[in-house]
């Protein structure tokens, strides 16, 4: 570890949160430099592309240079940073930029603390990237492919982060439901707890209880499940429609 630490950038010594905040404040500056390099060649002003747009609506055919079209697209994007108001950097798509995003993936070395990769920070970083891309979609490029795959993050770090906070609640709920169901079954049928375990019906109940607890975590989930059921049968109904009308030949052909 002692050997490794000098190699690490100084940021890694900070807490991940802090480094992100710091980074976010750095972001606009980086963007602006990028705008300038990307912005060359897109000199034409606003008026030209508006005219193109009109022409397109009037006449659906005809050659329109795609480049001016693209400019229109870019201008439509909400200006993310104050920089984009400047005339020189107008009409350029901001791109995602992060020091730890290297060659289309997260550079795991930069996420190391104490010789171990801080997967939580990787998840955080990916969350940020996806959020950014949702607001500012980027062109996919064959020269810089995205190779990051969420499956490289080990399963336990997902569990630790997303399941454990809820696990207590779910386990508790399942246990209570199980207990009361066992109690009711016992009081209604006289089958004891031990016998219930060997009973097919009771096993099914148990399964339903567990599945129910997993599916319905909040009250809204009931609606979601209902909607889901409706949705799955909707297409069937659309196909059945023609069979549901009772058939008949409007006239009988028999003599």
């Amino acid at each position, binding site marked *: 570890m002692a050997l490794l630490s000098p190699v690490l950038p100084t940021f890694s010594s900070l807490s991940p949160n802090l480094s992100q905040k710091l980074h*976010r404040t750095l972001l606009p500056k980086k963007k602006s430099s990028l705008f300038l390099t990307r912005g060359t060649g897109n000199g034409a002003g606003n008026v030209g592309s508006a005219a193109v747009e009109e022409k*397109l609506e009037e006449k*659906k*055919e005809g*050659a*329109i*240079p*795609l*480049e001016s*079209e*693209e400019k229109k*697209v870019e201008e*439509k994007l909400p200006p993310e940073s104050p920089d984009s108001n400047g005339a020189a950097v107008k009409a350029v*798509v901001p791109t995602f930029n992060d020091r730890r995003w290297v060659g289309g993936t997260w550079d795991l070395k930069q996420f190391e603390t104490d010789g171990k990769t801080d997967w939580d920070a990787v*998840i*955080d970083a990916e*969350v*940020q*990237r*996806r*959020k950014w*891309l*949702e607001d500012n*979609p980027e*062109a*996919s*490029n*064959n020269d810089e*492919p*995205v190779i990051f*795959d*969420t*499956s490289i993050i080990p399963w336990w770090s*997902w569990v630790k*982060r*997303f399941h454990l906070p809820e696990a207590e609640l779910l386990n508790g709920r399942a246990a209570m439901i199980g207990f009361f169901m066992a109690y009711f079954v016992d009081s209604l049928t006289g089958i004891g707890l031990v016998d219930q375990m060997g009973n097919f019906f009771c096993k099914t109940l148990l399964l339903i209880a567990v599945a129910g607890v997993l599916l319905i975590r909040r009250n809204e989930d009931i609606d979601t499940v209902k909607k889901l059921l409706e*949705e*799955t049968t*909707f*297409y*069937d*109904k*659309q*196909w*059945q*429609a*023609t*069979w*549901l*009308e*009772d*058939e*008949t*030949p*409007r*006239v*009988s*052909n*028999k*003599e």
Partner: protein
Amino acid sequence: MASLSSPTAAARRQDSPLLPFVGLRRSPSDNCMPTSRNAVSSRRRLQICAAKSSPRLPGRPLRVAVVGGGPAGGAAAESLAKGGVETILIERKLDNCKPCGGAIPLCMVEEFDLPLELIDRRVTKMKMISPSNVAVDIGRTLKPHEFIGMVRREVLDAYLRDRAAEAGAQVINGLFLHLDPPESGEGPYRLHYNLYDRGRPSAAGDRQTVEVDAVVGADGANSRVAKSIGAGDYDYAIAFQERVKIPEEKMKYYEERAEMYVGDDVSPDFYGWVFPKCDHVAVGTGTVTHKGEIKRFQAATRLRARDKIEGGKIIRVEAHPIPEHPRPRRVLGRVALIGDAAGYVTKCSGEGIYFAAKSGRMCAEAIVAGSESGTRMIDESDLRKYLKKFDQMYWPTYKVLDVLQKVFYRSNSAREAFVEMCADEYVQKMTFDSYLYKRVVPGNPMEDLKLAVNTIGSLVRASALKREMNKITL
């Protein structure tokens, strides 16, 4: 005659199904019917009659009009004419170049005996691109002779129509207006149409009327035949597409590759595409739920593909409705709907050419069989046989694609999982097999299980990230 025919008629009555096939449950109540059941309000009494007992036609073959000369109409007219039925095919625009992806599966080439010259491009690589720009190449599992054919619709349609004409169908360049139902049971349908004269192409055409015994509606999404039998409406997606001529060196990349972009920016419920055409690419997207915003989605598609189509010129802009599900009624009396008019387009992939041609052929075969090669009158039960066969054969395909669309086009996180899943070779093999040959091959159970686990893993991971994304603000 009566004594001979009655047992067979009785037997037919018993197994003469007219019931939905097993895959679809017949529900007792229909108050939850999706669309425009009111249009189909008249409750008709269940009564079955056997077509075998229908009268012979007096000294003439059965006359059938096929309205619409796309793949469905062309295929139907060909089979009808070959089966001894007097066929007319009414098409309003013989060089119609329909905006359409134009992808046909390999099995269509075989089944319809299409010459390979029809195929402009052979796509062997599909690229799926996720919202976070993860790109996956699908198609590594293809064998050397396997490909997805890309055709130009004007070429394919004309070829199928010509073949129908060769087989004996009469191709009429005219605009179908409406049809009058028969006055009596056996009476003819009267079709009204505007005949376009080759000599005066600009003229409105002469009004003509023709009498036929049965009508096959293959006139697409805005079907007039469907309207005239009160077939009801379907939801439709709007597909918007720009043909872009891109520089030669950029075109190389698309030589045998098609791209699919998924993401909320591109389409909330479908995908954006870049498909190679003969000498240009088609860039487009589609949606059902947000039709008003289609231009925004198109702009987003263009943006996502920007680096690969840079410097291109738009040579054509087109838009077209795509049916989402079959019409509430597909057969009435001696009128049947096929292809887009009936609503046979799959979800998820939006494929329709093959199913159109197949439904056309099946419908024609049912008519030929029911009329005993054009010698007897047909009735609704004969046409229902086509419906039954079609539904039985392709319902699973439609359902699977519907489920896929619902699961994986739901949100950006699901789309990420979808792309992750498509990276798997097993998935690619299964997808291509079912696409190219239109049959569902049972897979390896171990592989299926592995796939299920992986997919659920991908979905869980992606939705976990999604939940975090909702918490933060940039």
